């Protein structure tokens, strides 16, 4: 029985369909855990937003909404290229798969670059106040502590998101190398597909973060 098995079918699966379904179910379950993970942060955000609306309002005005918006567009495009890469793998087009994976990697890196610019501006402020939570935090308002709380959430949430992006890009690079070697084809593209689902999820998290942090407090 095992003699007739293709090399890309793991020994413990009976057939390709079973392997594919397992991978898909697995990634969806993993994404559920991710929802719960970010859910805890969103809960904290909502609780404090309800308690300190003023600080949340002022805090979001201190964020660079233009860079945030550009990043949103970049990330949506990266989801498109990711989807095209998955399509390439499904249709057995090695070149298409590899190229679109590369495009996704580049767009993801642009996102992180822009995020780094935003972080940099906060870490080395040109203003006379400092919005990095911790010992050096200062803001000339009675609700400085609450502002600090806002920025605690800003950095924790975007930081957690960025870590997911970095992990995603790492996996994409590995897929890219494999794709160039022709590992993926119409009969075997699970890794590309499940990474795609992960990538879309990380994208969706940002789609929530952007309005919650940058937009909702503005008038």
């Amino acid at each position, binding site marked *: 029985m095992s003699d007739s098995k293709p090399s890309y079918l793991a020994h413990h699966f009976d057939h390709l369909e079973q392997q594919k379904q397992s991978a898909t179910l697995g990634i969806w379950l993993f994404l559920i855990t991710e929802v719960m993970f970010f859910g805890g942060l969103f809960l904290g955000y909502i609780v404090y937003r309800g308690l*300190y609306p*003023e600080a949340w309002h002022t805090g979001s005005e201190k964020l660079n909404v233009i860079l945030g918006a550009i990043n949103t567009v970049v990330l949506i495009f990266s989801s498109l290229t990711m989807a095209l890469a998955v399509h390439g793998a499904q249709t057995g087009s090695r070149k298409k798969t590899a190229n679109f994976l590369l495009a996704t990697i580049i767009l993801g890196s642009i996102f992180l670059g822009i995020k780094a610019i935003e972080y940099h501006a906060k870490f080395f402020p040109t203003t006379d106040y400092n919005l990095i939570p911790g010992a050096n935090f200062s803001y000339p*308002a*009675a*609700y400085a*502590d*609450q502002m600090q709380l806002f920025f605690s959430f800003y950095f924790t949430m975007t930081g957690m998101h960025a870590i997911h992006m970095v992990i995603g890009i790492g996996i994409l690079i590995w897929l890219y190398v494999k794709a160039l070697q022709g590992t993926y084809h119409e009969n075997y593209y699970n890794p590309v597909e499940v990474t795609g689902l992960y990538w879309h999820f990380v994208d969706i998290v940002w789609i929530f973060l952007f309005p919650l942090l940058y937009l909702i407090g503005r008038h």
Partner: protein
Amino acid sequence: MNLLFTLLPEQATEYAKQVDSLYMFIYVVSVLFVALFVGLIISFTLKYRRKSEDERPEPPHEHYTLELVGGAFLLVLLMVMFFWGAKLYFVAQRPPADAMEVLVTGKQWMWKLQHPSGKKEINTLHIPVGRAVKLSMTSEDVIHSFFIPAFRVKNDVLPGRYTQLWFKPEKEGTFHLFCTEYCGTEHSRMIGFVKVMSEDAYERWTNNLGDENETPVQAGERLFSELGCMVCHRADSGALGPNIAGVFGHQVELVDGTSVLADEDYIRESILNPHAKIVAGYAPIMPTFQGVINEEQLGHIIAYIKSLANH
């Protein structure tokens, strides 16, 4: 040794007796269930123990009558416990209006207490028998918990907010006071006693002030003037801040159209973080008093504002 032979600790309040009745109800239900379950296990095991390796018992028949009836019966018992417990919980959550208020401040690792007369003490709480006492509690550092086993009452004491506890001791004596929320190295030494004394003895004790001659209300009034609060918080129409007389316990309208109940936590927030909630008709000009006054002084100012509630 009496711990070995008594089911329940000393009861020093009427509430404790009520809690104990509920306790005994659950206790009896539990003992009956344990007896039933263990009895069935033992008798089935004896009766149906394997006598030969050739035994092949019939598989059980699938029907759910037993489960349905058993489950429903249990649920009824459980609901009795729930409602009984909730009813008493309501009592514990609602101090009587005439309760004498004692201020409690927990800090690593001691209890600081102050009586309405101004009398202060540490780790020992003197109270009169037969009078309802309400504790208004806060912490200077971590979370503590104030527990008097003989009264069957307990509540956490949190930094940054007020919690309360009330009881009406029925008998004189000395009872344990424990901190039950783990609070660091000397947690187990954050203990003390509650001394319930006769009304006369308490009056003598509490009015023997020595050099602490201010009641919390008086101290609050003094602070109110020393810190310049009354410059803005006046009764006349030109005042820059809202008048504090008659505010406590009432709804306050805010700039954003919502309203909030003026309780201890609200007043505390208004002093430490004045811009969090702005009263309708006033400008956000009040400075914060965070770091300017300590927990005890905050408690005094709140006591003062409370004392003006009925003006």
